[in-house]
């Protein structure tokens, strides 16, 4: 019963956020500020995780492929796995941890210290002022972050393959470029935009619904990260099924 109530509340919250998204005023200043926080400051963590993911992927495929003499397939599998799956999903999970938690904690604290009520009394719609800029920024930034993460992931695979597994650099790159389709990349970027929406929405939703003091804000933060991580993986499956429907 409570689960149903949660879904209902979340649906209402989403509807209100989408309605606020398309009606003026649009706070451009706030959107740019959030893009800085959500996008720019997430670059190091997304880059690092992407690099290691690409590297470990190259190593595993080499070792696994070795069993039936298919170790030369490393560049193709790395680029496919990174652009279609691991790039957007790893970036999504990192953003859920870094940004989703921060959004929930910030808005949760604003809620328990009555700052959100204060917005209302100052004739400012809290959904427009707080939720919309975060969602817009996350939806714009996530594909960009993922595109950068994709490149760094491929680089990780390249570095491991060339310096550790004895591949020739030029051949590795040629195989990568020849094999990757633009579909592989765009599907990953579409996923990334959806994941960005999920993280920002659930961060805001949990923040807005936090109750009590410090503990309530802590719970909101945990819920934001856990629920957006789960939803990212579930949405990943659904999106893959839809995007590659043949």
């Amino acid at each position: 019963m409570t689960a149903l109530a949660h879904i209902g509340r979340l649906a209402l919250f989403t509807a209100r956020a989408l309605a606020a998204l398309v009606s003026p005023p649009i706070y451009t200043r706030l959107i740019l500020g959030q893009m800085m926080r959500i996008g720019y400051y997430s670059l190091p963590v997304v880059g690092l995780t992407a690099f290691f993911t690409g590297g470990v992927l190259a190593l595993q495929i080499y070792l696994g492929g070795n069993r039936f003499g298919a170790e030369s397939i490393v560049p193709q599998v790395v680029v496919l796995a990174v652009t279609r799956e691991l790039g957007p999903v790893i970036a999504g999970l990192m953003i859920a941890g870094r940004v989703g938690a921060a959004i929930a904690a910030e808005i949760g604290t604003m809620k328990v210290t009555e700052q959100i009520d204060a917005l209302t009394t100052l004739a400012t719609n809290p959904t427009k002022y707080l939720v919309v800029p975060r969602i817009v920024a996350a939806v714009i930034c996530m594909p960009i972050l993922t595109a950068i993460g994709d490149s760094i992931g491929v680089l990780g695979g390249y570095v491991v393959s060339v310096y550790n597994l004895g591949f020739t650099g030029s051949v590795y790159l040629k195989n990568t470029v020849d094999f990757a389709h633009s579909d592989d990349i765009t599907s990953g970027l579409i996923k990334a935009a959806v994941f960005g929406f999920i993280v920002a929405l659930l961060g805001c939703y949990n923040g807005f619904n936090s109750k009590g003091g410090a503990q309530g804000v802590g719970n909101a933060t945990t819920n934001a990260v856990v629920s957006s991580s789960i939803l990212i993986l579930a949405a990943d499956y659904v999106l893959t099924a839809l995007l590659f429907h043949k």
Partner: protein
Amino acid sequence: MSTPKIQLIGVKKRFGAKVVLDGVDLTIEPRSSLVIIGGSGTGKSVTIKSILGILRPDEGTILVDGEDITHINGGARDKVMEKFGMLFQGGALFDSLPVWENVAFGLIQGRGMGRKQARDIAIQKLAKVGLTEDVAFLSPAELSGGMQKRVGLARAIAADPEIIFFDEPTTGLDPIMADIINHLIVSTVKDVGATALSITHDMVSARKISDKIAMLYGGKIIWQGPTGEIDNSGNPYVEQFIHGRAEGPIKMAVKA
């Protein structure tokens, strides 16, 4: 008789099984200052939040200037909110913004005023509550509790509201700062010519800032009258409350 500034008719609100407001009737005349007294958890905050539309009453009607605002939303609600200013108990200052932007917030975001002009007004309003220009560029977190209250007051009056709400304005302040805030409330409300509604359990403050006092108990207004008559109310609940006695008809609620 003139139209009341704010009128509550049979307002009811409950949270789950707990009835907080059980038919509140209240009339506030223009340019008067009403204080609602009552113990913790008697629904004082819920009353204010219902008028502001932060909470929706389950039953009853709320009129502002004779207009029914109980169920309005969106742009119409924002329009009505422009009449209001509010001083929150904890200040509720936006910690991500400097002091002047807090004060100017309603002007910039609510009314679309230019930042430069809004800043000049903010500095004027800060001066009204006894704060100098250098405070304007500090962050709220750098201020003491009393200073935060002053900034909150400056923010509440920044847009020259017709109605100002004060939520426990003196709670958590030392007696001297409390008295300063009381004086500021009286002078600023008079200055702007506003209607004031305050909630408090500080009787010293209530006597100082009100023309009328109403007592909320058990979700209803059980007594109201001019401030001067509070000592001769003849109501045992009011007697117990204003003298702060543990013994009497009032049973303290455990839950908020």
